[in-house]
């Protein structure tokens, strides 16, 4: 049975779902940091399934939504990178209090990978970071969102010129604040290299993907999810689930 709740104080609470361990004493806490924008919707199913599998293997798992995303409060256009880093920190704290665990590992998906590495950096209280299809850096992620925006324009043959002009400033169908854009630009590839290599595990679905931190473990699930071309198709758990589970249950 999951436990869903809002956490954090003030006027911008975050939504989380806690999966207690279905078996065993549960000494390890996994925090799932989702991707953003349309990728959030596409990965909801697989990340929920992953949480169920991990809790079945005796882990405490916490899924949460950053402010301005999912069921959390706030609007995307009103939050910045520092807010999301704060959200990760609070989610870790909340997960620790709920589970009583001291060992924590983080899963970061796409831009979520960049955020968890920025959060974790050289912290010694995070045991492992698993990154699923991490974006290369913040600037490239913004370019991806702009390409997504261009593909929305291209496929919509009925959009008026006025609407096209008005939507030009959107990023992948979303309004981002100036501080958010600046924040992403400041997250370069050194964000990954700030994390000790032995803690990083990358699961990439593209064999051609550039590793954000050369030399770290890479598991190729052998499927293509078209992050830039498919905005809505849900990502099915198999075969990725096995690879992610393997990484997150390494002893």
């Amino acid at each position, binding site marked *: 049975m999951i436990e869903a709740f809002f956490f954090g104080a003030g*006027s911008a609470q975050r939504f989380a779902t806690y999966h207690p361990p279905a078996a065993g004493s549960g000494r390890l806490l996994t925090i799932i940091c989702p991707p953003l924008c349309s990728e959030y*919707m596409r990965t909801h199913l697989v990340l929920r399934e992953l949480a169920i599998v991990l809790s079945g293997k005796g882990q405490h798992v916490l899924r949460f939504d950053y402010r301005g995303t999912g069921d959390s409060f706030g609007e995307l256009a009103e939050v910045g990178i520092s807010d999301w880093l704060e959200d990760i920190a609070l989610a870790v704290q909340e997960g620790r209090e709920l589970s009583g665990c001291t060992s924590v590992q983080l899963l970061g998906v796409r831009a979520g990978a960049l955020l968890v590495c920025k959060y974790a950096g050289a912290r010694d209280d995070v045991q492992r970071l698993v990154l699923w299809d991490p974006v290369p850096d913040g600037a490239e992620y913004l370019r991806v969102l702009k390409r997504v925006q261009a593909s*929305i324009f291209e496929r919509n043959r009925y959009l008026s010129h006025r609407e096209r002009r008005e*939507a030009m400033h959107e990023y992948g169908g979303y309004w981002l604040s100036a501080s958010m854009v600046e924040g992403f630009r400041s997250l370069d590839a050194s964000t990954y290299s700030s994390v000790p290599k032995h803690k990083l595990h990358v699961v990439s679905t593209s064999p051609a993907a550039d590793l954000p931190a050369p030399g770290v473990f890479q598991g190729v699930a052998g499927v293509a999810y078209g992050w830039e071309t498919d905005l809505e198709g849900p990502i099915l758990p198999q075969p990725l689930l096995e690879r992610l589970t393997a990484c997150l249950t390494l002893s």
Partner: protein
Amino acid sequence: MSDPVLTEEPLQFGEGGRLFGILTLPATPARTAHALPVFVLLSAGALHRVGTFRLHVRLSRQLARMGFSSLRVDLAGIGDSPRRPGLTNQESVTADYKEIVSVLESRLGQLPLVLAGLCSGADNAIKLTPGDPRIVGMVLLDPICFRDDGFKARALVLKYTNPDLYVSWLKRRLKALTTPRRKRKEDDEPLDYLALRNLPTREQVRAAFLSIRERQGRVLSVFTQYALPYYNRAGQLGGVLGLEGYPQFCTEIYWPQAEHTYPLELHRRRLLKEVGNWAGAYLRPRLNPCPPVVRLQTA
């Protein structure tokens, strides 16, 4: 929960806590002489309660700021609600609905309901409405419609008078010439999205609208470019249903510029505004529950 004007509460309800949803309540109930309906936002397809591009979250909070309560829910098999084994989709939705009504009554008492949904969410709203007298409203995003006599002629005009379609055709031809033949065939395979839906019949649609009319309720229908294969004129749904008094209780929006899932923030904001305006009529005295004239709008 957190917003000065609303509260939110995650709910696990139904048999064994199977269903998951989030109840949104206004911090201060609207001061009206009549009971305001509660909005039930039905999940659509594989999308969970958050809705397409977070539409349900924003809609439920906007409605709460106006004084309405709502429940955005994961139907069984979607999001955080596990599937009901051994049931057909329709049986499962019917069972879900009973549990939704039950939890809402236990929390808020017996109140009228408005069902809202996109795509299969609209299909479910239409199928559920005749069977429950509590339902006094529907917000249907890309519901099914039926072609009328002028449909084909209008489709031809639409096709041959849109310069962007020529540009798009040229681009596709150019792309086809530079794409290996085998791959091109796969890419161009059209997907019949309607075939994936368990569509209500014309009789079911008619029955739903008749029920709403009898209950002095209201319906908002929004048709995007997704609906162009079967809907291409503001007022077409009213025309094919042929219901007396349709303009008095129905609002129909023809919006071919918008896509089915509203991937542009520009369109989502406009949609939220339209739904908000439509819902606002519930705040007026019951003596005049419906807008006096139908608004058939080409966006």
